């Protein structure tokens, strides 16, 4: 078991910088998720930790041991690949025993370990089959089994669920977590699916364009996103953004957008860039409260717009509303009947407003 420390880790492919100087500490036994869109550098980071890529700069430590130049086979890691990477010509048993044989373990020890792990993953009855005779979910279990049977110090998973259907994905998410608890290895998990990240990670690192934008617990990322990228990436449906005018009136700072005015609390005002006349506000879909238009006009603090799309989801509905030059989504109870082109108004508590610098995207509150 080992904590993982990355200091100044950098990776270039020719002229392309896949990963900019990155520092990251992953605690012993932690389940850390790297999440980001395609090309964000998350898989590169994982492969650097695995030793499948060589670093352009920086150092990697497992515990106190520097592993920067240690060969992949000597790092005591196990990895689950996106396409499973099973050996097609070997049975499930041999797939799982292959790594153990290399370590020179006795036949009986190998047999015991393989069968125990197979039972844990309910693939005991598949041990004689070849990978091509298995379904996607079964292959996934074999890949998982092959990784944990070695009892590694570091457990690396590269989008392991992306080839499974939605139902199986939910099932396997829970299983991977249970397996992680059973093996207690430090786990690094790469995904582009923020739902997977939120449900699985002890902590999550959100990446884009080779940079970690924010590292934190799921709640921290959701409640206090560091910038507009994290705010827009984490959460389904995503946070809506509106560009606002900044106005000073009667000694207070206010923001005006889509017919609404919001008074900014003093701590936010001090964080604002001095000359900025425009700011971006972000609103989570569940924080928008539908109000009757008459009430909205009287209140003077309601965001007004026109319904573009209504998506009924059974228990609730997602409503895409055009307002102030943007489109933002509201999550509403399904008894609030709405149709396309309806004029609607929403109130939102100032406590739930996120404010971002329009230039840098940095969160100002």
């Amino acid at each position, binding site marked *: 078991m080992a904590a993982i420390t990355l200091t100044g880790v950098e990776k270039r492919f020719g002229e392309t910088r896949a990963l900019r100087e990155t520092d990251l500490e992953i605690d012993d036994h932690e389940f850390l998720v790297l999440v980001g869109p395609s090309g964000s550098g998350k898989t590169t980071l994982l492969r650097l930790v*695995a030793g499948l890529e060589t670093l352009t700069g920086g150092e990697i430590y497992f515990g106190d041991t520097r592993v920067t130049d240690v060969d992949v*086979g000597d790092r005591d890691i196990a990895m689950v690949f996106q396409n499973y990477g*099973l050996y097609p010509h070997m049975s499930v048993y041999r797939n799982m025993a292959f790594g153990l044989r290399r370590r020179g373990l006795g036949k009986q020890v190998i047999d015991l370990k393989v069968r125990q792990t197979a039972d844990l993953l309910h693939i005991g009855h598949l041990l004689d089959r070849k990978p*091509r005779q298995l379904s996607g979910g*079964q292959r996934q279990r074999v890949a998982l089994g092959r990784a944990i049977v070695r009892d590694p110090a570091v457990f690396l998973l590269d989008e392991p669920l992306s080839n499974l259907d939605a139902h199986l994905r939910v099932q396997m998410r829970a299983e991977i977590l249970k397996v992680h608890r059973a093996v207690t290895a430090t786990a690094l998990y790469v995904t582009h699916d923020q739902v997977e990240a939120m449900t699985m990670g002890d902590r999550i690192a959100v990446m884009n364009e080779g940079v970690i934008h924010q590292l934190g617990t799921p709640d921290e990322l959701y409640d206090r996103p560091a910038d507009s990228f994290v705010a827009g990436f984490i959460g389904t449906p995503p946070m809506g953004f509106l560009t606002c005018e900044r106005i000073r009136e009667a000694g207070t700072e206010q923001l005006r957008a889509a017919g609404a005015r919001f008074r900014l609390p003093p701590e936010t005002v001090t964080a604002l860039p001095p000359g900025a006349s425009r700011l971006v506000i972000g609103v989570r879909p569940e924080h928008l409260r539908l109000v009757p238009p008459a009430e909205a006009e009287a209140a003077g603090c309601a965001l007004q717009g026109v319904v573009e799309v209504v998506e009924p989801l059974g228990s609730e509905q997602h409503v895409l509303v055009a307002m102030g030059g943007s489109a933002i989504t509201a999550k509403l109870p399904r008894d609030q009947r709405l149709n396309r082109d309806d004029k609607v108004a929403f109130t939102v508590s100032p406590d739930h407003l996120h404010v971002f610098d329009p230039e840098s995207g940095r969160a100002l509150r």
Partner: protein
Amino acid sequence: MSLTVDKPVPEQPAGRAAAGTGRRRWRPSVGRSIVIVLVGLFGVWTLWPMYWMLSTALKSAKEATNLSPTVWPHTITGANFHELFGGTLPFSTYLVNSVLTSLIAAAVAVLISTLAGYSFSRGGYRLTSAASLVVLATQMLPLVVFIGPLYLLLLRAHLLNTYLGLIIGYTTFAIPFGAWMMKGFFDAIPREIEESARVDGYSRLGILFRVVVPLSVPGLVTTGVFVFMNSWNNLLYPLTLVSSNSRQTLPPGLLQSFSGTFKTDWGGMMAASLITSLPLVIAFFLVQRSMVRGLTAGALAGT
């Protein structure tokens, strides 16, 4: 590990979905009939020389040289085959020489082609693509171009008239082709499989022989059969590099034995040709499936 996880929901094994569609009923049509006739004609065109070889081999010397040729032997005789193995002709020596040199050349070429093809496919060195192109370029020159330099090299190395010299000659044209063919196979193997083996602690060579080679058996077989066929059929190299009768292989041996200035023993030549063709025909039927796959492997690289 005392913990168990939830039982999986049963799933359909991969590839089952397509099963279950009924066979189409065969219906005759004009187009189909034309196709069948054309295929039939092509078959006759292709197989006729082989039939003629078999038929002549079974005819007596008189019938084989008759001015009005017979389509099938009126009197079947095994005399031509008897003469091959029991007569004055060193046919058995030619056969053994051919088998020996072709088999060894195929084995050597497969081994070197595997290593070279793997390097071309996965090397990633700066010179890999340049080297692989140079190797490919050798295939663009006709075989006869090599014979002069090869003769001089083998002469200096005192390898003329030896099995080793002949095997070296065969492999000079076989390895470049084999390396490219193996590269096509290796390219089709997902890198993740090899990376799994790296994570499992295996070295490059360990991965090559434990994971990559077992997955490339069709490629190995194709390369092997291809080299064997080319060596077996090669007339030019043994004719040039070997002068002693005891080291001669079948193609030049037969040519020199049966075609005389004043008389040609057609029956004997056809019997010898038949026996010479048999190993190739058998080998081809055994491996035709993987051979077709082998020759087209890599055609869809990247898809």
